[in-house]
C-alpha cells in the first residue's frame, strides 16, 4: 500500500515518511495535484496557521486534487492543522476550509473549573475513545498522544463522527471518522507506539471505512 503525504511546505512530512517506513509502508511526498493522481491513501499533515495552510494547498493544484479524492471516496487522514482544514473555517483565520466537516474550529478557552490552563495546549494528553473504527480498535484504552495547538473542534455530546475526545479547558474532538475522511488533532508521528499503531490502522484498515 502506497501512502501519499501531502507536502505543501507546511508540515512534518519527513517525520511522517519515517514513521511509515517503520511500519513497513511505502510513502511518497505529493507536492502538487499531479503527484496525487491514483492515490489510495492520503495523509494531510499541517503545522502553522489556518490561512497559511489554505494558501499552501491552493498552489500547484493540491486543493482541487484533494477535494476530488475526498469526494471520490479515497481515505484521507488529516493531522493537526490538516484535520482543521477539513472544517468550514477557523477562528484563527478568514479563509474557508474544505468544508468536508460541517463544523468550525474555535480558539480553545478555559472551562469553568480549569486551573493551570495554558495555550498552546502542549504535551501528552490522554484521549477518550468514544467508539471503535478504523483508527481505534474495540476496547482501546490508555491511549495518549502529543498535542500542540491553540485551536480545536468542540466536542458536542453524541456526535457520531467524534471517535475520540480529549480535554483542555473544554472537551474537544481528538479524532473523527466520517466515511473515508478521518482526522486527528494530535501528532501520531510524534506519539511513539500509540501513533505508530494508529497510522498502521489507517493504512491497513481504511478500506473498511
Amino acid at each position, binding site marked *: 500500500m502506497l501512502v501519499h503525504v501531502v507536502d505543501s*511546505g507546511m508540515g*512534518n*512530512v*519527513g*517525520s511522517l515518511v*519515517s*514513521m511509515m517506513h*517503520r511500519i513497513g509502508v511505502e510513502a511518497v511526498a505529493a507536492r502538487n495535484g499531479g503527484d496525487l493522481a491514483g492515490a489510495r491513501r492520503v495523509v494531510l499533515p499541517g*503545522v*502553522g*496557521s489556518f490561512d*497559511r495552510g489554505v494558501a499552501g494547498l491552493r498552489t500547484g493544484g493540491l486543493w482541487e486534487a484533494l477535494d476530488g479524492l475526498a469526494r471520490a471516496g479515497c481515505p484521507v487522514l488529516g493531522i493537526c*492543522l490538516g484535520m482543521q482544514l477539513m472544517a468550514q473555517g477557523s477562528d484563527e483565520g478568514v479563509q474557508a476550509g474544505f468544508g468536508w466537516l460541517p463544523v468550525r474550529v474555535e480558539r480553545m478557552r478555559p472551562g469553568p473549573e*480549569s486551573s*493551570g*490552563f*495554558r*495555550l*498552546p*495546549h*502542549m*504535551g*501528552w*494528553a490522554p484521549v477518550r475513545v468514544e467508539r471503535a473504527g478504523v483508527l481505534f480498535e474495540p476496547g482501546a484504552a490508555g491511549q*495518549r498522544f*502529543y*498535542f*500542540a*495547538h*491553540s485551536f480545536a473542534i468542540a466536542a458536542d455530546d453524541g456526535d457520531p463522527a467524534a471517535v475520540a475526545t480529549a480535554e*483542555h479547558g473544554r472537551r474537544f474532538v481528538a479524532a473523527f471518522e466520517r466515511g473515508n475522511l478521518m482526522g486527528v488533532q494530535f*501528532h501520531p*508521528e*510524534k*506519539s*511513539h*507506539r500509540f*501513533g*505508530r499503531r494508529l497510522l498502521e490502522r489507517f493504512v491497513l484498515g481504511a478500506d473498511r471505512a
Partner: protein
Amino acid sequence: MPRARIIPCLTLLERRLVKTRRFTGPRYLGDPINAMRIFSDKEADELVLLDIGAQGRGPDLDLLGRLASEAFMPVSYGGGITTAAQAESVLQAGFEKVVIGSSALQRLGFVSELAARVGSQSVVVSLDVRGGGGAGFRVVRSRGAIEVADDPVLAARRLADAGAGELIVHQVDRDGTRCGYDLELVRMVSSAVGVPVVALGGAGSVGDLRAGVAAGAAAVAAGSLFSLFGRREAVLLTYPGDEVGRWER
C-alpha cells in the same frame, strides 16, 4: 491539563554531542544520531537539541534531517536561527519547534514574524538567566557575556505577547550543578505568563523534576541528569521510567 513533560536537553557542537557547564566545556558525549535513537526507544516525552556551534553558520540541515528521522517524539531545535526561512527549513526537516535565544528580547518583531509564519506552537524562546538568591536576576545572551534585561518576568511577558508559544527558563548558574532548579525563578515566570514554561538548569534527581512541576513548570528539562552518571560523570543516557508515574498539575 496535559501531563508535565520530562525533556532531555542535548547540546551539539560540530556534529557531536557535548556537555557544557555555564558556557564552558565542552566535553564530548557521543554520537547525536545514536543518542536520538536511544531517547526515542525509551519513549522520551520530548527532546530539545541545541547547536552551540551554529551561531553565524545557521542550522546544519543535513544532520538535522537525519536526526529527526530517528525521533518519534517532538524535538525542538535551537542554534543559529536568525531568519524565518531558516526556521521553516528546520521544521520541514522534521523538528516540531524552533528555539530562539535571549537575543529575541531585542528582536521582538522577529518572534512575531515567526509566530505568524509557523504558528506560536512552534516558536520557543529560551531565556538564559543568571543571579537570584536575593541578588536579583539578569537575563543574558552571547554565552553570558551580555545582559539584555534585569527582569525575567517582564522579559517573559514581552516574549509571550510577541507570540512565543513556549518559554524555556534556563538558570545558567545552576548548569551541571545538580543542586535543583531555581524554584523561585520557575515560580515567578510560570505565574506571570499563560504559555507553557519549561524549567532548565540544576536538576539532579527525579525529586528535583517533581519540585519543578510543583513550582508551576509545564515541563522539566535537564542535560547532565539524563546524560552523565555518578561522581565521575560517566556518559550514560538515561530517562526516568514508570517510577515518575502520572503527575497531576
